[in-house]
């Protein structure tokens, strides 16, 4: 069934999509002359301007990512136990928590940011809340699936020796998933650093705010050094997290 229906359908849908998004060679050629607008300025970076104006905002970006990933991951820790079959026998609460986690995962990070800027006002706090939801969603999914596959033996042993359910989970399930939790946390922290860069585009704080104002005036000569600074920061943080992961795990 998959081969007979699937491949032709995929092909048809691809062609249809390309028509829908408007692949038009003539337009492309006409716009191609505009490339000078970008290329002339993009490769003429104004370093002094960027370092002077963007370093504080970049620091703000990193702070948003740190705070949000820590909060999001630690909120996700208890929720994940409720959203796993292995540690939650009550079908009703299991379904509720699982669907909650699935639901927040469907809303993209920037949509969260837009919603929170309306709800709590412009600024980094909205960005923090947006990334809390973002990291909560990812951590909840990854961790609850890890809990699904834990070794149930220790849990049973703890219960057999008289532990209550919560105690059993604390002493036998939690230690099993802590290494995974740490690894996921570092991974999510990296994702948050990347995501926090663009939050400013909707007014949720960080370096994106400066990118947004320069973007409107097509000042790519000011944007390109900021992008390079971001790349350096992201790569440095990734290296640090790789090092830490090797140290801990």
């Amino acid at each position, binding site marked *: 069934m998959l081969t007979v229906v*699937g491949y032709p359908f995929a092909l048809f849908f691809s062609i249809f999509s390309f028509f829908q*998004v*408007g*692949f038009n060679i003539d337009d492309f050629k006409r716009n191609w002359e505009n490339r000078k*607008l970008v290329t002339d300025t993009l490769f003429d970076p104004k370093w002094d301007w960027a370092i002077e104006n963007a370093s504080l905002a970049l620091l703000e970006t990193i702070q948003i990512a740190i705070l949000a990933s820590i909060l999001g991951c630690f909120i996700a820790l208890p929720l994940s136990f409720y959203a796993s079959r292995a540690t939650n026998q009550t079908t009703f609460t299991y379904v509720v928590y699982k669907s909650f986690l699935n*639901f927040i995962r469907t809303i993209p990070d920037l*949509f969260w940011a837009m919603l929170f800027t309306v709800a709590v006002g412009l600024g980094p706090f909205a960005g923090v809340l947006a990334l809390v939801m973002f990291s909560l969603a990812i951590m909840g999914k990854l961790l609850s699936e890890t809990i699904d596959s834990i070794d149930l033996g220790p849990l049973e042993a703890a219960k057999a020796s008289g532990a209550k359910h919560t105690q059993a989970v604390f002493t036998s399930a939690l230690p099993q998933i802590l290494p995974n939790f740490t690894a996921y946390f570092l991974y999510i922290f990296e994702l948050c650093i990347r995501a926090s*860069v663009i939050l400013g585009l909707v007014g949720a704080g960080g370096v994106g705010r400066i990118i947004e104002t320069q973007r409107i005036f097509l000042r790519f000569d000011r944007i390109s050094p900021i992008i390079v600074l971001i790349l350096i920061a*992201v790569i440095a943080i990734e290296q640090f997290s790789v090092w830490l992961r090797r*140290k801990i795990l």
Partner: protein
Amino acid sequence: MSVPKQPLNQRVLKYVITFLIIAGSLWSASGLEITPERFLTAPSKVWILITAMFPLDLSQEAIDRIVPKVGESLFIAWAGTVIGAFFSFPIAFLAANNFSLNTFSRVTKQILNVIRAFPELILAFVLLPITGLGPLTGTLAVGIHSIGTLGKLSSEVIEGIDEGPLESIKSSGGSKLNELFFGVIPQVMPTITSYWLYRFEINLRASAVLGVVGAGGVGAELINQLRFRDFPRAGTVLVVTIVMVLIVDAISAAIRRRIIKGRDIKV
């Protein structure tokens, strides 16, 4: 009976990590001027926004505007994924160290890393003056970013193949090309296809936000309705997007499971 103590370095590590986490969050919170009160008052403020969205604006005019935009996001995501899959497939073979020359593989991998480092939104607004306001820009941004991520994932799949089938093809007189078509591709195709679908799910979320910079899709609709304080219509945009993402995720996850696990064989 006493519980044996953990080794000293592990205990120290535990304290260091706890300290890092607390210090990190305090430093960040003070730098951003975020106080606990703001967290406590946030839920009520969010609740006000949610109640403002209901009842949703389900008028014919709103639906006629929103559904095509959500569809546009879907097409951007699919077309972008196709671009990513089409170009990343050959590149992945160049990047896999068991297939291409060592230096070649290292250079290709570095190029993929650089491509991956740029978020779709930044690619989108750099492309915007060249490809114009509209879904084409979003498609290209999503596509270019996908080449980076899919290239990396696919090359890792190719690096992890079982060499046995290749050897048996070689020993029965097959050429290098035969090895590729009958030894490698059948082995890697299921995993790589499921990565394509997985990327499509991610791209769907990415293409939804691209409208913020004017690169097509539903994002522009949401940010405009929120700016004009038309909350019921913003709510409709959100709900339609969520429903679309849920449906696509479910279909894509079912196909991925089918590809990886194969057909159920009844005995």
